[in-house]
């Protein structure tokens, strides 16, 4: 078996284990490439059956339009049970990437929204597409990451996780975040998308897009909510995205890679890591660990 096949088998094993042992699991679907691979693996895990759990998308209302269109089409085509949750209070309070700093915005519109959705539906297990190669504190996290009643992660008291024997026993109110892609790397994900011919949001491939430069990052002007400085004019540039999120917070990279192999080639030769384009991760050395302690994915 090739390493990709081994990774695929390991992930399917994890997904099935959760479906068998938890009462009310959910798959957190962010529309990005990792969630897309996760969804594909879930389909494989339960074939010829349907997914025995719903999908949850936490919509900040600032996602790229192409992402939302893609999400709705995929859900329709596969007959998925899709829950979309938005922090409507945050929207009413005008919490946007332009009115608050990225840390506060992320906390209110993503983390708090996620926690409210988990509580509302009483999910006891939530799949996420995070990989350990993404970031140093992720590299420390278990496949089954136990969160307490307040959804907090305590890195000091993680359960030993041996072989493929996952311990999902929890007390009422606690929940488990499950990361079936833990052992995948960025290139594995791309290679799998290529090999399995999985459809992804086209924003990952280079195209002419209207962008402006902000604090050294290229931000795509995805709709007219983006406030432009006086005299600032969006420029058409050949760009693509390594990760997708809220468009005002996702830095594009200049690229000519219009095909997957070209994207992989660029990625392998790149000198910067994937999370670099993500504005929210730069706040402090341990910001990811801190956010996870607070309940972030």
């Amino acid at each position, binding site marked *: 078996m*090739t390493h990709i096949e081994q990774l695929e088998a390991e992930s399917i094993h994890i997904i099935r284990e959760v*479906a068998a042992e938890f009462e009310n699991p959910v798959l957190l679907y962010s529309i990005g490439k990792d969630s897309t691979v996760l969804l594909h693996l879930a389909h494989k*895990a*339960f*074939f010829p*059956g349907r997914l025995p759990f719903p999908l949850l998308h936490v919509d900040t209302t600032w996602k790229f339009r192409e992402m939302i269109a893609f999400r709705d089409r995929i859900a329709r085509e596969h007959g998925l049970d899709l829950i979309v949750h938005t922090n409507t209070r945050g929207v009413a309070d005008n919490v946007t990437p332009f009115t608050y700093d990225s840390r506060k915005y992320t906390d209110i519109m993503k983390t708090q929204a996620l926690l409210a959705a988990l509580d509302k539906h009483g999910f006891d297990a939530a799949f996420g597409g995070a990989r350990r190669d993404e970031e*140093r504190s992720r590299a420390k996290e278990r496949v089954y990451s136990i969160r307490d009643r307040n959804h907090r992660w305590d890195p*000091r008291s993680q359960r030993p996780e041996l072989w493929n*024997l996952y311990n999902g026993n929890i007390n009422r109110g606690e929940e488990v975040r499950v990361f079936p892609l833990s052992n995948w790397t960025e290139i594995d994900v791309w290679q799998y998308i290529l090999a399995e011919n999985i459809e992804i949001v086209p924003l990952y491939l280079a195209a002419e897009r209207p962008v402006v430069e902000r604090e050294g990052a290229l931000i795509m002007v995805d709709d007219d909510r983006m406030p432009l400085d006086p005299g600032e004019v969006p420029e058409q540039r050949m760009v693509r995205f390594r990760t997708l999120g809220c468009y005002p917070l996702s830095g594009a990279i200049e690229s000519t890679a219009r095909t997957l192999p070209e994207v992989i080639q660029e990625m392998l030769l790149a000198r910067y890591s994937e999370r670099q384009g993500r504005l929210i991760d730069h706040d402090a050395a341990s910001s990811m660990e801190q956010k996870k302690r607070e309940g972030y994915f």
Partner: protein
Amino acid sequence: MSEPVTPGSDQRQLIERDIDDYLARHADKEILRVLTCGSVDDGKSTLIGRLLHDSQLIHEDQLAAVERESRTGGSRAGELDLALVVDGLQAEREQGITIDVAYRYFSAARRKFIIADTPGHEQYTRNMATGASNCDAAIILIDATNGVLTQTRRHTFIARLLGIRHLIVAVNKMDLVEYDEATFAAIRGDYETFASRLRVEDLNFIPMSALHGDNVVERSTNMPWYRGASLMHLLENMHIAPGGGIDNFRMPVQRVSRPDASFRGYSGSVASGAVRPGDSVVVLPSGLATEVTRIVTMDGDLEEASAPMAVTLTLADQVDVGRGDILASPVNQPRVSDTIDATLVWMGEEPMAPGRQYIVKQGAKQVFGRVETLRDRVDVNTLEPLPASTLALNEIGRVRLVLAEPVPYDAYEDSRATGSFIVIDRLSNITVGAGMIQAPGGQATHSHWDETPHGALTATGSAVTAEEKSQRLGQTPVTVLFTGLSKSGKTVIAQAVERKLFDEGRLATVIDGQNFRLGLSRDLGFSAEDRSENVRRAAESARQINDAGLICLTAFVVPLDSVRERARAVVGRERFLEVFLTAPIEELKRRDESGLFEAAERGEIPSFPGVSSEFEEPASPDLVLDTVSLGVEDCALRVMELLRQGGFIH
């Protein structure tokens, strides 16, 4: 030895030149799972940082972050501290130590590596075991200025215990001992002495400086006396022998897939061996036999599935199969028992409590279980077993576990997937132990019969001959085995015979199964293995009693003919008689005042011969007594007759 390649630059050229070719090759790479371990501060995290750095696998922004942090924190007072690449938790960076396992990924020309960096601190030994459970190879670091320490030994032992067969001992910080060959040789010698007891198949030594990169990716120019490969070269090229375990098919069922009335499939990951449509399989623990009809996947039906593939099987018959059951090839089946002998690594803050109920997760099954016996604890320094009444955090011991119901399992050395289990605390839900099941015969099981006594032992005879004893007592010693189901009358008839013999002036003694369990066999349960061991002890005792000149009357169920046969061989064929007591089961139930049969029928007694476990009728008994038509007195008379006919009494 050829110069090692630098995977970074080499790979890079291929990627630039021909990405499709690179991807094709990358797809074919195999995964090697490696662990770094060793004592605190031996340089494990630094080594991984160095490996990634010198393979040009750390991105510029990541390196910039590490450089920034090295100035303010880290352990190198301003110098670049590559351990910070892996020490990802805030507390780790503050304290300059590793607390929890970190996983790092990189690939070279031939292999893709998953490296688990584990903590050296004794307090976090369980995290080291966690990292080791999925690894094929271990890099054990030793600080050249300290040599082999307790923690080095402990980690080596745990690595072996968890089945890691390839060890690379990296003698690190050679820069601090002026790259001295003699220092390296001395440490190597010490380590070899210790490791010789652990049967390591593949043991390699590399002198190294993780800090400066000597022999990490490139061969060092500071140690021309070292002729071996660099670590990277070794990792890329070392031969990893396939599993070593059994190749019979097994698949624990994770989930029954029933999307609609027309489809019923069993989903799981193949744990060992392979399966094809048309193969016969048995469902365990029930033992029902059926046939595989299809191997279903989203990519189409398969002709064959092998470990570790995740598949869904359909079966020919509507047999009862649920989560936790194992589908297995009928040849060389897993054992099914409620009793498991295992080596247990304790991971709970609270000590292990023998007798307490825990949750045991094995395969896809969770059952209640308790530690019935703690045989010993292993001293990691000497590897000697020590008596123990409990296991504290990070201690390792040999236990006998009794589960609430029988489960199918294999020995860990035969199959990691079906031979391992975790122990979960019922209240806190925390994983408090990890177990590796021992091959039957590793402890008091069936094949104690087969064990060879220590070579230095010799048998001595008696000062009084058998003839002298026989003359004095007027009898030729013999052992009578009264075998039959519970309540068949074994004890009463044996006692009646004892009385008659005594009244005739002979000397006999009764060994009763229950009495035995109150004393000599107090440590045994009622599984097939334990019953067998109980009989072995009885047979050895009967032999002693016969050697003393006495007649021995033994009252034991002995459900298996093979076990009766072995008892006969131990006692001596010429002086062993088998008496089979029979009665219909209704009659036995009627005699059963304590309700054992009914309890067994309700499933409360898992291995009760004749009800919930097998009873083989003796193939060639010397006497069969129908205890319904014959009373105790009549039965006793017939046994006396048998003894007379055999010439044991006159």
